[in-house]
């Protein structure tokens, strides 16, 4: 099920239209939602299982999917990310940019109220953006929401965002899960007040939050999209053990598995009463090779390694077939400006030759470090070790705890496996990981030409031209191979058959639980 790229007009891109909002509110047919075309029904309690803990309710600090889901339930952003990765209106009814795309003006919906009463104003939105940018907040989104210089309220419902340079994607970035509008007054007092309480204006309001067990929210009747949400309450239940999570949905204790695991997916699909859903995404594992240190400073070594891997087989072995081979281009077809990447076959002989040319005629011994979470990293490592062996690579796979990985390996080691979600835009992806000044630039590829293409791309408003620029960037990456990207993972989830309107968003961290309703056969729960 691949996403067709919608050609977007400049106007559509830069200005959110009321008409457009209407379409989005009705629910664009998103991946996996094809069957859900009956009239939505209200009522019922929806139970969603997750495997990671919601550590805080503060949306500015959210980092994993269960937390993003909590953000979505309790809060609203200026925009939301549509199924085709475009910005759709949320709190902002519409927006426009100046011609250079260095200043954006957002017009906020009127009459939207926080759960605790006060109306949502442009001042709140401005304060939220500034709080995300404030290093003291330590928001994961600090560097990801765009080159923002300043956000300020023009009047009670008009927000102006001034950028440090042209940036066409700002409306999309405003859908970032960390930019959920919180009351300015709370932010001014102490950001930490958001940690354990609900100060949002989202579709649901908080009933109970037990970080180690469950989160329960109930419908907020004042939600700004009339009619939604459909269910009375949503419970997010924590199952740290995947086997237990699977057992729970098969047993009918839960209705939705938020993110499934390849190993369990097969079993879930076979169970009666459960639908296993799957959607392609741009989520990938990247094998990081430091380009500024031997042996990977020699592009031939990187190429040799790339050639020695059988991508199709890796998808089978590591992902149980639930993914697509990628040929080292991080931009999956789901992105707006994705360019076609030519597949290539495993070529051990060529790999061996390249390795010899690079000065390793007797093979190359090297240690590959893999974090223990997610387990696919180690599996990929083991698979690489085995596949690259005939080409002369002797890869010693070292599995290390995730936290050690974060502390000692990530952005420090020579050769390791990273893992990233789909980003909202190419620009976000590139400037997060690959440009010389990217915060997480871990391969130190530092290609000036690439940086230039990306920088051009972000200030270019014309889609065709942009596409060209990004295609160039993608070509550069597959030519120079700063990373090996063996596959794109499919997003997996599962739901009981009576769950309607549930979709899998390619971005991964977007859930739209307010659009889910419970059909016939749903259990009655309090």
């Amino acid at each position, binding site marked *: 099920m691949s996403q067709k790229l919608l050609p977007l007009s400049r106007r559509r891109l830069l200005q959110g239209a009321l008409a457009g909002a209407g379409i989005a509110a009705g629910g664009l047919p998103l991946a996996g939602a094809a069957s859900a075309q009956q009239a939505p029904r209200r009522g019922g309690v929806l139970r969603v299982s997750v495997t990671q803990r919601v550590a805080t309710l503060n949306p500015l600090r959210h980092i994993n999917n269960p937390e993003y889901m909590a953000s979505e339930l309790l809060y609203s952003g200026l925009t939301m990310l549509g199924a085709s990765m475009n910005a759709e209106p949320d709190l902002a009814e519409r927006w426009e940019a100046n011609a250079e795309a260095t200043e954006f003006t957002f017009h906020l919906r009127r009459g939207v109220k926080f759960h605790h009463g006060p109306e949502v104003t442009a001042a709140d939105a401005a304060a939220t953006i500034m709080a995300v940018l404030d290093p003291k907040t330590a928001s994961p989104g600090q560097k990801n929401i765009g080159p923002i210089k300043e956000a300020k309220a023009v009047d009670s419902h008009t927000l102006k965002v001034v950028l440090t340079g042209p940036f066409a994607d700002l409306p999309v970035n405003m859908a970032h899960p960390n930019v959920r509008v919180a009351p300015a007054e709370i932010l001014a007092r102490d950001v930490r007040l958001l940690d354990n309480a609900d100060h949002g204006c989202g579709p649901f309001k908080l009933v109970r939050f037990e970080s180690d067990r469950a989160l329960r929210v109930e419908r907020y009747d004042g939600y700004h999209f009339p009619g939604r949400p459909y269910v009375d309450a949503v419970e997010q239940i924590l199952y740290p053990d*995947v*086997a237990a999570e699977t057992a729970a949905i098969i047993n009918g204790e839960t209705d939705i598995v938020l993110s499934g*695991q390849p*190993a*369990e997916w*097969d*079993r879930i699909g076979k169970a009666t009463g459960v639908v296993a859903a799957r959607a392609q995404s741009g989520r990938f594992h990247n094998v990081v090779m430091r380009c500024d240190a031997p042996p990977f400073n020699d592009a031939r070594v990187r190429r040799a390694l790339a050639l020695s891997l059988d991508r199709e*087989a890796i998808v*089978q*072995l590591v992902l149980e077939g639930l993914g697509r081979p990628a040929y080292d281009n991080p931009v999956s077809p789901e992105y707006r400006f994705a360019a076609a990447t030519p597949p290539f076959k495993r070529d051990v002989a060529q790999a061996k030759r390249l390795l010899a040319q690079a000065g390793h005629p007797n093979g190359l011994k090297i240690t590959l470090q*893999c974090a*223990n979470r997610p*387990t696919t990293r*180690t*599996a990929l*490592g*083991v*698979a690489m*070790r*085995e*596949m690259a062996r005939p080409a002369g690579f002797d890869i010693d*796979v*070292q*599995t*290390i*705890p995730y936290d*050690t990985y974060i502390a000692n390996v990530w952005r420090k080691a020579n050769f390791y496996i990273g893992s990233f979600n789909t980003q909202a835009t190419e620009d976000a992806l590139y400037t997060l990981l690959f440009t010389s000044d990217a915060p997480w630039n871990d391969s130190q590829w530092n290609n000036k030409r690439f940086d230039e293409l990306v920088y051009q791309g972000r200030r270019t408003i014309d889609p065709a031209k942009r596409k060209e620029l990004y295609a160039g960037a993608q070509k550069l990456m597959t030519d120079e191979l700063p990373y090996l990207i063996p596959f794109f993972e499919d997003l997996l989830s599962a739901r009981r058959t009576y769950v309607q309107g549930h979709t899998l968003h390619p971005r991964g961290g977007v859930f739209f639980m307010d659009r889910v309703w419970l059909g016939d056969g749903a259990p009655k729960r309090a």
Partner: protein
Amino acid sequence: MPDWLRRLLAHPSGSVGCLLLAVALVLAVAGPSLAPFDPETFHPRRRFEGPGLEFWLGTDQFGRDLLSRLLHGARSTILFGVIATAIGTSLGAAVGLASGYAGGLIDEAVMRIMDALLAIPSLLFSLLIVTVLGGSTVNAVAAVAVTIAPGMARIARSVTLSVKSRDFVAAAVARGESHAFTMFREVLPNVAAAVVVEASIRVAFATMVGATLSYLGLGAQPPASDWGLLIAEARPHMLRNAWLVIGPGLGIATITIGFNLFGDALRDALNPRVGR
């Protein structure tokens, strides 16, 4: 054949225990050379096969031969428990013997420290240590050894105290023997039996803790084939090929049962009350 060995073999659980340990020993020494396949070679088209003619115990998620992996993992799995226990026991016994023999304030201080270490439940203690040091086989061995030591120290000390009160020690003192002789020739051999018995039972426990650490991702790491790790890796796939869990599970159970039986029988064999 020494008397205790004869009694050990005559003991029904002792003979079974010895048999199981003999099997374990063979596996530890010759395991890799008995393996029909390379334990790391993929057979991508033969994934998750059940027991069959070619792959006797079936294959795992990469199509690797489970039997070969088991045989290769035997040595490190068995050695883990044995080495961790050996280190922990020697450390603990040395501390306990010295402390019990010295007595007085030294003994009091040493035992308070041992109590404090004992007050942290052992798996938690191991986890803490491995969390600090980082997950690896070496660190896991160290962590388990450290948790075994205080218990062994307590046992060695209490046996030392009881031996110290026996008249042959008084005889040595009355004779004017040196401390070294009294401690190492008179006391130690009598402490050793109890320590060895306790240690042989602890091996089973250490093996289980090792497996648990591997299960939690803090012990041996892929692509190693320690049995605990095999289970951890197989867990997501156990519904497709239950042998992936059953095989190494039985392996661990065999070793731990073996050491448990052996230890219990050894205790009986070395205990004159039951032996005669």
